[in-house]
């Protein structure tokens, strides 16, 4: 256990330093990037990606994947927007409750199909991704909901400022804190790691792995639902294609953050820093006069580089079996994983 946790801590520390250096480097080119206002904007702009990456991380930890998050954001966002346009005076608490509820149901559908029927998560969420996204169209016939149709409170809530930070950023920070506590300090959190690290062993030690899978999909759906409202409110418009292909950025943030796609390895700090990294790249490009068309290529190169750098810990034990010195290393890391 200690050698793995130090390795992980070092990985997150290294990523944190890289993000910091990146911010400073951009700041050296364009000092305006380092002003408090600009940094707050960076954090706010990355908040939704952060929340979704945290949800996705829990799914990936349990050896699953959720490709439907962006479609969930679009569908939940549209439902809250329609609700607001019909009932502009609706209290914000009810809007958020609806967003959480709808997101939870969409996540639970994924979780049920994965856990109860036993269909591979990638296939299920590939299917529900199309279904959820298509449902947005069925709901509206392709119509947009524009800002003037939305309620005042609906639009104002994420923008309200508390101690210098917008509510949107506070929500992301609170969720990160909550996830950190859940994963590291509760039985449920440790069971997620166990179920993903070695499902067979987890099962034999009395953990209902199928129930864990169901629950992580519910959590991911819940957070995606919340982000649906936050997204629509932040950009003040709802249409069929919002957050299109955003699931890939979410997974990319997890991968950059060192979360193993094979399950069982990863931390909240990693997911947050991974999201922040992508956020810095996105926000810095226009400031240092690089065409925004470079953004996709740069994130691609970063993901590939991050995966290669993170790869050492993920080599399968089977490959090392003939090399005596590495046996101990493999055993050590396996033991720590479980």
């Amino acid at each position: 256990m200690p050698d793995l946790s130090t390795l992980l801590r070092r990985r997150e520390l290294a990523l944190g330093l890289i993000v910091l250096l990146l911010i400073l480097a951009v700041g050296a080119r364009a000092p305006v990037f380092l002003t408090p206002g600009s940094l707050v904007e960076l954090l706010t702009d990355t908040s939704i990606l952060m929340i979704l990456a945290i949800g996705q991380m829990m799914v990936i930890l349990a050896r699953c994947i959720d490709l439907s998050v962006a479609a969930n954001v679009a569908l939940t966002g549209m439902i809250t927007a329609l609700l607001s346009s019909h009932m502009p005076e609706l209290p914000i608490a009810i809007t958020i409750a609806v967003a959480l509820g709808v997101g939870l149901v969409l996540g639970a559908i994924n979780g049920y199909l994965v856990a109860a029927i036993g269909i591979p998560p990638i296939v299920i969420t590939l299917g529900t991704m199309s279904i959820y996204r298509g449902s947005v169209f069925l709901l509206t016939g392709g119509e947009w909901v524009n800002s003037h149709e939305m309620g005042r409170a609906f639009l104002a809530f994420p923008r309200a400022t508390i101690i210098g930070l917008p509510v949107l950023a506070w929500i992301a920070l609170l969720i990160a804190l909550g996830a950190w506590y859940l994963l590291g300090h509760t039985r449920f959190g440790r069971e997620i790691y166990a179920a993903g690290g070695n499902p067979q062993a987890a099962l034999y030690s009395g953990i209902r792995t199928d129930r864990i899978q169901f629950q992580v999909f519910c959590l991911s759906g819940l957070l995606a639902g919340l982000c649906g409202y936050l997204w629509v409110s932040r950009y003040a418009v709802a249409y069929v294609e919002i957050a299109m292909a955003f699931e890939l950025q979410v997974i990319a943030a997890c991968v950059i953050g060192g979360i193993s796609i094979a399950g069982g390895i990863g931390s909240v700090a990693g997911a947050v820093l991974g999201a922040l990294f992508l956020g810095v790249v996105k926000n810095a490009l226009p400031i240092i006069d690089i065409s925004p068309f470079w953004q996709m290529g740069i994130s691609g190169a970063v993901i590939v580089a991050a995966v290669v750098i993170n790869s050492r810990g993920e080599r399968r034990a089977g490959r090392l079996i003939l090399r005596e010195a590495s046996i101990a290393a493999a055993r050590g890391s396996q033991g720590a994983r479980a």
Partner: protein
Amino acid sequence: MSTLVSTSRREAPGIAAIPDRLPVGLRDRLLRWEVILLAFLVLVFLLNTQLSPYFLDPWNLSDATFNFTEKAIIALPMALLIIARDIDLSVASTIALASTLMGAAAEAGAGPVALLLVGLGVGLLAGLFNGWLVTTFALPAIVVTIGTMSLYRGISYIILGDQSYGSYPEGFEYFGRGYVAWVLSFEFTLFLVLALGFGVLLHKTAFGRRTFAIGQGPEAARFAGIDVERHRLMLFALVGLMAGLAAVLLTSRIGSTRPNIATGWELEVITMVVLGGVSIMGGSGTIPGVFIAVFLMGLVTFGMGLLNVPGIVMAIVIGCLLIGAIATPILIRRLARRG
């Protein structure tokens, strides 16, 4: 107990794929995935003839093939790759990159044959790069190809930005718009030939048996003397090459290149493969199954198109089809075990 069974099945898909006894009875033959798919296909076909009077026109049917042929051509090698427990999510981005570089080559005065070579070459290199990353660093294919998916299309965006290439040389349009005989388009004929080729490759050659062996268990395959990493590299290269070919056909057909060309195709290609009965966990699947699934998806979308159903609603149907296709045999098997 049911938990134990389901988890162990997920843990070792290869083992579960080997039946207790050989499928010999009539009931087993009828319950084969390909037969079920074929029944669906006939059903959809008949439904379409009833719903629209325009459906049975040979030229209409021929036009319908254009919508899925390029994806189907990628689905063939993708089936082999997924059987060998890998996956490639970067195929649509490979198309974008290949198409962009073909556009640049056309701008520089390349002829149709040179453009074909550029398209195939870029596809092959993109596939090799994926395969090299996956095998050299022992990385999960899904993560690597999510990265190269951004990378390849990102390069297209860097080259083109909001511009597009639209001037391709005389003769180049044959690949995507030419006809071999009567209603048989060049694209579709090429797909038929390739389907036959991949069918033979997977089901009748040592290469195909090696692919299944790796999918059933890479470790066992290695101990059986198969160079697993080299084989996987070849499969990635093959997928890239076919994505390059699809790029040639698509670019030739629509006659222009934008960086957002073929967006979202990777998911449709994988849907075709999985609908065709290829196990996403690897180890089992057939080319005839994928072949039928291609037509099923093509007919469903074409039929809905004739009924003026918007594309996004078709996506719902395809999504339900995908989940239904996977869930049904599992539920039938579970019921059979209980009965």
